[in-house]
């Protein structure tokens, strides 16, 4: 692994003044699978310690051990110099350790105030003291500089705002140690800035923060210490001053990594044309996509960059047939497809890989193989019945093409890592032999290794004449395989870059200021 900092193993006795919570030789097994193999981990007092690692590296398991969800199989936790055994999340909370999970755990049918005080309602003389709860909620929201009314239903909030509510809830229990698992994955740049400001304030108040993110650059701007996990082992750690992006990536994946470059192919005829496309907002007020014109040629890779709410998802879902356009045309190889159903569009060669793979991409009750073959059932149906041999052939080919790592086609889909699940969703749509593929945030929540593989698959397909359109909210990904970068802002194209693409120019056009 050859890392310079690894020789300097954390001391067996953590420095109490410096380290608030330490894990020593922590191992955790689930049956035969060893998720953690003796990890040493220090949470620095009043500072941000970021945990880097690919999916399946053991980050989540380590966080669950720290927050009392799992008991370690071996090793011990040391809080303020004293060994502790944290048996439950309630026990962890009493010790001042809170966790904000990657998946939101809010009740969408309840309002912000009730969510924040869920399970620990403030009692007055006549039942729950709603006024006091509301006052405290307002104060929290003021601290977070977020203009959310405590009486708004959570389901009416944007995903980013819901994340803020989740953070507010963790703050409201006065945690000394706050674990944040991918807190920015659904936030816009402005919301991220607010969150980072909040983190600074928390540090000033002496709160120690454990931070996990796939967004490496972003994490680097906030962290004070970095720890890298790989295959359940700590491969490297170091203070912020001694590390950089390249160091993290090298320790995460083991070798140098790049997300690829645009395929050097000759572009063909226009494959997908959007003419003055409008999609109404879900709320009915105004257009989410506003008179958008876009032409994508065969063999071309187009990246659409934009913040949350820029209209990327609405545009993608409208083109795929899930949302109806309020006006405008969608032409596929010159034919208007805007009246076709989703299945007719798939048959015509236009497919979408949705943003949220758990909600829209996977059938969790079905096996890996059944998920892969779901969109191309017609290809292995003879007269009335499906043909098992033909289906197996399609599944085998898909598994090889998108390099899914699974125990076999019969493995439950939930047993796969996020990156492999995403490959299954992509493989499912590729099995229909499309000529245009749309991918909404294909890299969301997958590790850098899988990301590289996904982009390699897409570049490969573009080389063979497929038109590829993907959205992203990470600038690095725009610079990967795209021939052309489109920046969307409020439903319109704000800028278009074909060469000399720079991160700064893209972010400036999206209405985002550079945070660091």
């Amino acid at each position, binding site marked *: 692994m050859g890392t310079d900092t690894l020789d300097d193993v954390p001391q067996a006795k953590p420095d109490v003044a410096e380290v608030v919570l330490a894990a020593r030789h922590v191992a955790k097994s689930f*049956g*035969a*699978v*060893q*998720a953690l193999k003796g990890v040493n981990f220090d949470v620095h007092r009043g500072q941000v310690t970021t945990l880097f690692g690919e999916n*399946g590296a053991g980050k*989540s398991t380590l966080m669950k051990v720290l927050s009392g969800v799992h008991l370690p199989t071996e090793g011990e936790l040391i809080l303020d110099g004293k060994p502790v055994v944290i048996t439950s999340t309630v026990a962890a909370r009493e010790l001042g350790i809170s966790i904000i999970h990657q998946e939101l755990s809010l009740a969408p049918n309840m309002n912000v105030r009730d969510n924040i005080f869920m399970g620990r309602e403030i009692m007055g003389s006549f039942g729950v003291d709603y006024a006091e709860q509301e006052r405290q909620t307002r104060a929290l929201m003021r601290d977070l500089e977020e203009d959310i009314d405590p009486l708004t239903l959570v389901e009416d909030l944007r995903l980013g705002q819901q994340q803020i509510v989740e953070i507010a809830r963790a703050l409201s229990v006065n945690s000394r140690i706050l674990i944040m698992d991918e807190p920015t994955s659904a936030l816009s740049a402005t919301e991220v800035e607010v969150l980072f400001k909040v983190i600074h304030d928390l540090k000033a108040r002496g709160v120690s923060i454990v931070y996990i993110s796939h967004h490496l650059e972003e994490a680097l701007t906030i962290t004070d210490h970095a720890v890298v996990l790989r*295959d*359940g082992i700590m491969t490297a750690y170091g203070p912020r001053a001694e590390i950089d992006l390249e160091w993290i990536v090298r320790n995460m994946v083991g070798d140098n990594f790049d997300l690829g470059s645009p395929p050097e192919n000759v572009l063909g005829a226009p494959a997908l044309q959007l003419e003055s496309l409008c999609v109404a907002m879900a709320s009915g007020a105004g257009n989410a996509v506003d008179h958008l014109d876009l032409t994508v040629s065969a063999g071309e890779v187009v990246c659409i960059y934009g913040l949350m709410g820029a209209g990327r998802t609405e545009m993608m879902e409208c083109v*795929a047939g*899930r949302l109806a356009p309020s006006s405008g045309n969608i032409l596929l190889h010159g034919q208007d497809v805007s009246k076709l*159903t*989703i*299945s007719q569009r*798939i*048959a015509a060669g236009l497919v*979408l890989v*949705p943003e949220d793979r*758990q*909600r*829209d*991409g*996977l*059938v*969790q*009750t*079905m096996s890996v193989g*059944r998920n892969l*073959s*779901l*969109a191309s*059932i*017609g290809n292995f*149906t003879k007269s*009335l*019945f*499906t043909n098992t041999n033909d289906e197996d052939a399609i599944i085998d080919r898909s598994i090889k093409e998108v390099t899914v*790592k699974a125990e076999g086609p019969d493995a*439950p*889909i*939930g*047993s796969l*890592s996020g990156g492999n*699940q995403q490959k299954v969703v992509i493989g*499912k*749509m590729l099995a*229909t032999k499309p000529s245009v593929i749309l991918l909404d945030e294909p890299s969301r929540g997958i590790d850098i290794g899988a990301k590289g593989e996904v982009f390699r698959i897409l570049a490969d397909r573009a080389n063979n004449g497929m038109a590829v359109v993907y959205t992203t909210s990470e600038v690095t990904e725009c610079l990967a395989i795209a021939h052309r970068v489109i920046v969307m802002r409020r439903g319109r194209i704000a800028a278009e870059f074909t060469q000399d693409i720079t991160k700064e120019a893209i972010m400036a056009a999206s209405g985002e200021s550079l945070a660091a």
Partner: protein
Amino acid sequence: MSDVRSASLETKPKKAGELNFVHLLLEGRAFFALIVIIAIFSFLSANYFSVPNFLIMTSQVAIFGLLAIGMLLVILSGGIDLSVGSTLALCGVFAGFLMQGIELEALGVILYLPVWAVFILTLCMGALVGILNGVLVAYFKVPAFVATLGTLYVARGVALLMTNGLTFNNLSGDPSFSNTGFEWLGFNRLWGVPISIFVLTAVAVSVHLLLTRTPFGRWLYSTGGNANAAELSGVPVKKVQIWVYVLSGVCAAIAGVVLSSQLTSAGPTAGTTYELTAIAAVVVGGASLMGGRGTVRGTLLGAFVIVFLGAGLVITGVSSYWQTVFTGAVIVLAVMLNSIQYGNKGKSG
């Protein structure tokens, strides 16, 4: 990753025996339950373990089995069909009504349809109720529970209106009108086996093939597992939803015809609460009420468990009040086992 995997492979064989046994017991729980039930009652009563008794019990299974297979389709799609008991009665009464002859006033004649035509029209009646349910659920977004609860009342009401609350007792037809043979389904035997059992077998085999070998089956499992993902993969989710209610209605109609044929009478109050027994059979058979999981084999076993348990209690002279208690306990136990089986698979990492 690679060393984690190899480690898991090394240690697997040690635990495999014990794990497999628990797994097998959990997977085949309805089957083992049935064997235990048969063993216990055969021990308690000499009359229980005999071919005639098994045939009688199985022809009872036919009614619930038919309803349960239709119910399974609906439950697989993530819905529920509370109207099947009422549909059964409505279709029975409708068949009885047709057997009495249709008076065409304009022509001044009474039309006596042949029995096969009566059957087909009755199945259409069942399908009609199903279309109503399906359209309400798929297009008007009425929750399945509420939509079919409404149909439960409407169908029962229509059945009562058709007969004014009375029962059609004469279903045998008249040789002079060449419309005899209605009892054939309920009374006749082929190689000593009641026809109703053949009907159940035919429906079960067809639905089994439908689920395992056709695109529709795949559409249905994916719709129930995750309708959003299914729709984006090109599955016609709304059509699937309508079709399952239609098929459930048709199954209820078949059950209605078989039941009135067995009883040689068609009453508007037949099949009250049968929908609950059908749901119970589906659940005991290991299907998930959340949709997407379940098999015809399991559902049939579930129907056998419930009927054989009830019949055993009758034969051994246990009070019918206890029967209700036992049946309830079996259902709760089955749901508990279902959540053990699916609970750890439901959430993905």
